[in-house]
């Protein structure tokens, strides 16, 4: 299925959870935050949130800025 992550289209297996996607990107355990279809999704809910076709994720972290 197709999922939009940070504005890019990515393919994932049916039934993948948000936690699976975060882990597959090598971001497990990193200080990142996730927005699922424009709502913040707590890290504790990532595993229990299955993705569906055309869902949108924003995965953000902190960078240098003023």
């Amino acid at each position, binding site marked *: 299925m197709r999922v939009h992550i940070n504005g890019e289209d990515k393919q994932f297996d049916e039934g993948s959870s948000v936690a699976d996607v975060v882990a597959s990107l090598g971001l497990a355990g990193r200080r990142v935050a996730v927005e699922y279809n424009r709502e913040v*999704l707590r890290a504790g809910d990532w595993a229990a949130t299955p993705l569906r076709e055309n869902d949108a994720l924003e995965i*953000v972290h902190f960078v240098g*800025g003023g």
Partner: protein
Amino acid sequence: MQNDIFDVFELAGRSYRSRLLVGTGKYADFEQTRLAIEASGAEIVTVAVRRVNITDPGKPNLLDHVDPKRYTILPNTAGCYTADDAIRTCRLAREAGIGNLVKLEVIGDEKTLFPDVAATIEAAKVLVAEGFDVLPYITDDPVACKRLEDIGCKAVMPLAAPIGSGLGIRNPYNIRLILEQSSVPVIVDAGVGTASDAAVALEMGCTAVLMNTAIAGAKDPLLMAHAMKLGVEAGRAAYRAGRMPRRLYATASSPLTDLLG
């Protein structure tokens, strides 16, 4: 002389000694960022929230170099042009485990980076209601600052001049009006160019100064970070010491008696 050369100030329930808040943008690398922050003596450090590069997610992270246990991390909403985007950004920042403190900026114009005052106020209302400690970047407008204070913002952060311009405090009279009316900390945010600009802000009675480009954009950022630390300390000490009155004519410093005959 007052015993405490460094007085502390309270911000959102915590006390700080350093009156210099610094950004982490525009440095050559994370090591230079870390060293500049150290030289500045800052205890509060701003960061931006951005998408992870998902094609290269393993890159080193800013917070591996700027320890959140040592510094208060202040996420900003730089680059947001709507209240909604700024609110989403703050929610994400909080979820990333940094805390409730946010630097709210809703930009209204890409050339001047002046804030959208109406959208900033709108976003501040929502964020305060959601329990954020909101520090809004705002124009040097006493009315806008008053509104933000009334909403429940923990400080007001009027600009000295456009972000990254280095022009110094362009309207000291407005800053004075803001100081006079405010019962929350007044932090001059943006537009400072060099150490004397920072000193002026503190001499006027501002609580603190927030800057990024003035340090990162100097030829020698580490030396400028040190200069800013001294400028802020000098300005604060001068404010507390109470300056002498200005006089139009000279008053001699040496005795006027017992001169040679």
